[in-house]
């Protein structure tokens, strides 16, 4: 606390001898902190509280002896504590008004008794005991000045190690506690000081000018008038007479609010307060302070005048001002309330950061930072006395000279200076701003503006030594000629550039701008060195962003045209590192980078191009490799994939794929794999006969290469021709053999993915069986990460399309693990698992196992999944289950609420879900009882409602479902009533034979109702059905013929009804009876 007391507190400048503490907010804050510390001492450190001070703390107290209670021996003018030291002396002795206290315990109790006057007491105590630490701990611990500060700690430690009696141990503890308090106080005061530092002539001037603009007669104004007492302004911006400037006073203002008398206000560095006032007849102002100190003019006026406060908020003036204060030179014309509070937090955060730092840092660094705080403090202290304008000027001068040395690139950069470049400090501030989210962009360069960055710099004093060394090197980069620059660059390369500390250090000292700037020169060596560094540090995501922000990408893209191959390589490699995020990739494309990178791939042409032979040369293959590396990063954006394809990149990649350099192949295949996600690129890949080479590289030794090849195949094998190519080039066998290596999960995922997509073709599935891949896949169903599982299950699902494969899966015990996966949550996995289970269920024997595992219930519950794909897949899987299960009807009914759920899914708007549910309903409806139930749930109107579709898959399954549902009650009539019939007739115009058959069968069922026949006839079904009779599909033929005969018979019946000898006008009845007989006839042949 010694340091805080000597340095931070503001002592009155009045005179010698007993100086007094001024009543300023800062001092008050410090006193409060001290009081809090002392008060809690007795609880927090009961042991140390008993420690007896070397010398008593002695001061004049206002406390009456009567205030002392139990534990004290009280007489009229003296008080003795009952606590005594070893020699019997009381630890507290009061002889009005002098008090002597000799332990923290007594101090605590004393302050407790002082109650409301504790602050005054503490103040008196500190005023009387200018060096309390020395009195408490003895002269050894006396704080002389800040330099001997750390040595005093050392001497304490020394002492402790020498003599180990318990007293000195407590002594040391107290010393440490006091030290902590001291640090705490310093940090605390820093907060105040940082707030105060804004109070300078400039801010007051601005405030007063602003207030003046809003003053005048009338209700809307904030004040009647505001003016200085003196028109004369000193060159330092102060208006107070020099002898008052000594006290930090800046100017005096006369203010007349609407609702109060004229106020005479003193504006000083320490704050704003009312003074004794200015008498009319005298020129002098009565300088004595008569009121409280406020932090600024507006706060004071708000306190004094209600109208001012009210009008201020109307004017939105406060906002203007607070912004103005905090972000210094930001001018915002209109107030926006929501932004009001934000700037205020900024300095605070910085403080918090420093505070945090101090508290967490080790003792040494804590000491160090306290010294820094001190440095800071001294500066502000220096600002306080009268000649303050001089010191500020000094400080400014110094600061600008600092900036000169750091931001020297304005003066002379090598050949091509970059005018747009920001000085290092500004960049630094930019990053600080970013962290603190300052909203304004319009900060202009000014002295105050530099302040936060300066401060941050000081706070960073405990940075590693690399920081300072790098800073030095960057200076050489800025100011050196080519030779010096190369030396600095080479030296910088020796730092551990892979470490974040170094990376950030380079950025924070403004190195990135210089490095990028160097790229724009003609000096090859500087370009090389700079790129070598950029390449390393751009592994850091933050640095990448900074490089893009500083416009590094276009420069590097330009270098791709350089005649020096090694420059091309380095630029491409750096781009590969930087282009890891979307904005960067887009920037590469926008500046024509993709074309140039693709050109790098063309190494045959490259070698014919004129190039400069030089020592730094690299092979053409290397150039191509770097190009591929950069393209790989870039190809993660869709726009770039297209650009690569358009500039002929796929062709060149295909050429490179024929080489056998592994480190070339990885980026090449990686790029191809990324590109393959685009339809157009896949076509190009197919055209370039790339599959062949991918297969070749599957046999490589390199795991990463295998992985990317498999990924590329996975993407490409969506296409049927590619799948056949895979088989023809013998790619299935290496895939199958890679399945056995399960350690590398990424590769396993890629390989299983490739197998999945390849096995979509049946021939491939057969091949896989030959290679025993099915068994291996079943083995992979357990203990694998989800990415692998999805692909494994997908592959099994596809392989199950083959009957023999299904048998293998059952025999290997694959059904149990599959069913277990039904309870997962991964959407993609569930889609594949349901498909695989459904495929297995086609086999009656497998179905028995599935049924015994209660998998149908699990499938059914997946119908409730939120993902439509899972729903559809589950519904499809249910179809074979219901088909092949024993007692399927009973089983379905046993799922409570299951049928209702299925019917309700018909309300979905996803076509795949609808089609699958229709298929499920077709199977459910085979059981009469279940059909009755779903009819009750309103299946007929729901099916009719979706009949108005053009999707052939849905049409087919819908028609099948309708024809099944006709089998119950008066459902046929119901479909007619819900206008499904007319829509169904339209299906006959579709091109899909499956739709024709299903529709004809549905129409045949529906035609047993006379009204439906009429509708069909009206919709022109007869002609369409007649065409169908000519089909080679027997089912279709039969259904079409049956339907036509039903319609025909009705027509006959109507004819008959017209004849007089048959007066029966109810034509329905004969038609039906007739139909029945005819129907039996029709079935006979």
């Amino acid at each position: 606390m010694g340091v805080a007391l000597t340095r931070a507190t503001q002592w009155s400048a009045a005179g010698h001898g007993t100086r007094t503490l001024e009543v300023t907010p800062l001092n008050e804050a410090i006193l409060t902190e001290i009081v809090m510390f002392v008060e809690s001492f007795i609880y927090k450190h009961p042991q140390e509280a008993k420690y007896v001070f070397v010398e008593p703390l002695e001061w004049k107290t206002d406390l009456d002896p009567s205030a002392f209670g139990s534990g004290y021996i009280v007489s009229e003018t003296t008080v003795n504590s009952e606590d005594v030291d070893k020699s019997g002396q009381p630890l507290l002795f009061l002889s009005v008004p002098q008090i002597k206290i000799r332990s923290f315990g007594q101090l605590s109790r004393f302050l407790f008794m002082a109650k409301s006057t504790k602050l005054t007491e503490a103040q008196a105590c500190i005023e009387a005991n200018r060096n309390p630490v020395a009195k408490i701990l003895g002269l050894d611990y006396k704080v002389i000045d800040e330099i001997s500060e750390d040595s005093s700690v050392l001497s304490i430690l020394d002492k402790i190690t020498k003599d180990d009696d318990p007293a000195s141990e407590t002594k040391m503890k107290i010393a440490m506690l006091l030290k902590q308090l001291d640090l705490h106080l310093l940090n605390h005061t820093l907060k105040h000081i940082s707030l105060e530092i804004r109070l300078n002539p400039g801010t007051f001037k601005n405030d007063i000018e602003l207030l003046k603009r809003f003053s005048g007669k009338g209700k809307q104004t904030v004040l009647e008038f505001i003016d200085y007492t003196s028109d004369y302004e000193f060159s330092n911006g102060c208006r107070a007479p020099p002898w008052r400037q000594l006290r930090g006073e800046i100017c005096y203002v006369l203010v007349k609010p609407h609702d109060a008398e004229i106020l005479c206000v003193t504006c000083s560095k320490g704050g704003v307060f009312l003074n004794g006032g200015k008498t009319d007849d005298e020129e002098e102002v009565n300088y004595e302070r008569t009121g409280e100190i406020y932090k600024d003019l507006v706060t004071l006026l708000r306190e004094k005048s209600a109208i001012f406060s009210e009008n201020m908020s109307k004017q939105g003036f406060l906002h203007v001002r607070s912004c103005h204060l905090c972000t210094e030179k930001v001018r915002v014309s209109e107030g926006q309330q929501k932004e009001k509070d934000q700037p205020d937090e900024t300095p605070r955060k910085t403080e918090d950061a420093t505070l945090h730092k101090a508290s967490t840092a080790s003792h040494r660094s804590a000491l160090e930072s306290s010294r820094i705080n001190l440095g800071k403090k001294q500066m502000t202290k220096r600002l306080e006395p009268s000649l303050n304008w001089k010191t500020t000027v000094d400080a400014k001068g110094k600061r600008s000279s600092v900036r000169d040395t750091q931001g020297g690139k304005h003066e002379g950069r090598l050949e091509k200076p970059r005018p747009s470049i920001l000085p290092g400090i500004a960049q630094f501030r930019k990053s600080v701003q970013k962290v603190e989210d300052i909203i304004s962009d319009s900060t202009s360069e000014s002295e105050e503006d530099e302040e936060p960055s300066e401060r941050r710099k000081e706070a960073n004093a405990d940075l590693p030594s690399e920081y300072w060394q790098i800073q030095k090197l960057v200076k050489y980069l800025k100011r050196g000629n080519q030779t010096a620059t190369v030396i600095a660059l080479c030296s910088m390369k020796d730092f551990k550039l892979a470490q974040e500390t170094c990376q950030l250090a380079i950025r924070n000292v403004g190195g990135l701008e210089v490095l990028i700037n160097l790229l724009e020169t003609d000096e090859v060596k500087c370009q090389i060195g700079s790129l070598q560094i950029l390449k390393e540090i751009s592994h850091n995501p933050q640095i990448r962003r900074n490089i893009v922000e500083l416009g590094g990408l276009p420069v590097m893209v330009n270098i791709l045209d350089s005649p020096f191959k090694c420059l091309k390589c380095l630029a491409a490699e750096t781009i590969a590192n930087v282009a890891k995020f979307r904005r960067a990739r887009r920037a590469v494309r926008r500046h024509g980078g993709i074309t140039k990178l693709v050109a790098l791939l063309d190494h045959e042409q490259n070698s014919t191009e004129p190039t400069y032979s030089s020592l730094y040369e690299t092979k053409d293959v290397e150039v191509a490799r770097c190009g591929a590396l950069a393209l790989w990063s870039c190809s993660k954006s869709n726009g770039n994939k297209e650009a690569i394809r358009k500039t002929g990149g796929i062709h060149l990649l295909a050429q490179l794929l024929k080489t056998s350099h592994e480190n070339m192949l990885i980026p090449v295949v990686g790029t191809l794999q990324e590109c393959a996600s685009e339809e157009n690129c896949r076509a190009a890949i197919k055209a370039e006969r790339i599959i062949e080479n991918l297969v070749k590289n599957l046999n490589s030794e390199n795991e990463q290469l295998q992985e990317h090849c498999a990924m590329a195949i996975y993407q490409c094998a969506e296409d049927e021709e590619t799948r056949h190519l895979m088989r023809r080039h013998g790619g299935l066998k290496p895939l199958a053999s890679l399945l056995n290596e399960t350690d590398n999960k990424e590769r396993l995922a890629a390989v299983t993915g490739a197998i999945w997509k390849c096995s979509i073709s049946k021939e491939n599935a057969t091949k896989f069986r030959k290679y025993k891949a099915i068994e291996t896949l079943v083995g992979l169903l357990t203990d694998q990460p989800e990415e692998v599982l999805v692909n494994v299950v997908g592959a099994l699902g596809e392989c199950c399309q083959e009957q023999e494969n299904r048998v293998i899966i059952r025999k290997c015990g694959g059904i149990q693990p599959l069913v277990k996966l039904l309870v997962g949550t991964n959407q993609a996995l569930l889609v594949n698992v349901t498909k695989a289970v459904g495929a297995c269920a086609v086999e009656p024997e497998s179905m028995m196992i599935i049924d015994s595992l209660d998998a149908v219930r699990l499938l059914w519950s997946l119908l409730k999944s939120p993902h439509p794909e899972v729903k559809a897949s589950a519904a499809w899987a249910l179809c074979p289950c219901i088909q092949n299960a024993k007692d399927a009807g009973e089983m379905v009914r046993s799922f409570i609420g299951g049928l209702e759920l299925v019917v309700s899914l018909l309300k979905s708007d996803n076509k795949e879900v609808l089609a699958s549910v229709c298929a499920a309903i077709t199977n459910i409806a085979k059981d009469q009882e279940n059909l009755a139930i779903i009819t009750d749930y309103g299946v007929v109107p729901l099916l009719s409602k979706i009949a108005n579709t053009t999707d052939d898959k849905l049409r087919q399954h819908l028609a099948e479902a309708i024809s099944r549902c006709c089998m119950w009650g008066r459902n046929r009539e119901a479909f007619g009533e819900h206008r499904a019939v007319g829509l169904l007739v339209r299906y006959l115009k579709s091109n899909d034979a499956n739709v024709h058959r299903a529709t004809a069968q549905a129409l045949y069922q529906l035609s047993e109702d006379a009204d439906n026949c009429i509708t069909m006839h009206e919709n022109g079904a007869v002609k369409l059905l007649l065409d169908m009779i000519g089909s080679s599909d027997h089912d279709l033929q039969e259904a079409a013929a049956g339907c036509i005969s039903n319609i025909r018979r009705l027509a006959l019946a109507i004819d008959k009804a017209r004849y007089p000898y048959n007066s029966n006008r109810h034509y329905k009845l004969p038609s039906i009876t007739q139909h029945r007989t005819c129907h039996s006839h029709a079935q006979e042949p």
Partner: protein
Amino acid sequence: MEQRVLKKLVKSISSMVKSFKKSEIECLIRIFHSLVKRADVRLDNTGLDRNAFQAILHSVFGMTDDMLMNRVFFAFDKDNDNYINVKEWVKGLSVFLRGTFEEKLKFCFEVYCLNGDGYISREKIFDMLKNGLHQQSPEEATDERIKELVDIALNKMDYDNDGKISFSDFEKAVKEDRLLLEVFGPCFPEAKNCLDFEALAF
């Protein structure tokens, strides 16, 4: 010049310099002779003197640093007679135009080493780097800065920590980082100028 003499000269030089074809050597000799004449030298000498050579370095090869050109002259002038004869000319150019890495390494070291004591001392480095910073602050401060820069360079290249750079130090450092080849100033013409010269000469 007589054809026979020329042939003989070409033959003797081509046994020394392998990187040029004979026809190329012939061209270089012709250029040398035309330069000698143009350089207006006294009759008794047989080569280019320092000023003439520096003028060539400047105008043909675009080199600018006077001090280094001077040093390059000494590196060319193997027999230290202050003139560059035709053999030295061809040999030097072979390093300039076709030099292998090792040759260039040696050449640079010779340029930087200057007085032939086999070391590049701290003082020599200081001399070579003293114009390395753009003038800005007062002389003294700049001198300090240069000294620091020399320290940085020594720190990087002086492997045996004897305060000076020996050839093995130099070789090791440059092999580690080729950028350090012309560490104390450009000794070679730029690649573009070389190509231009070759195009012109052959």
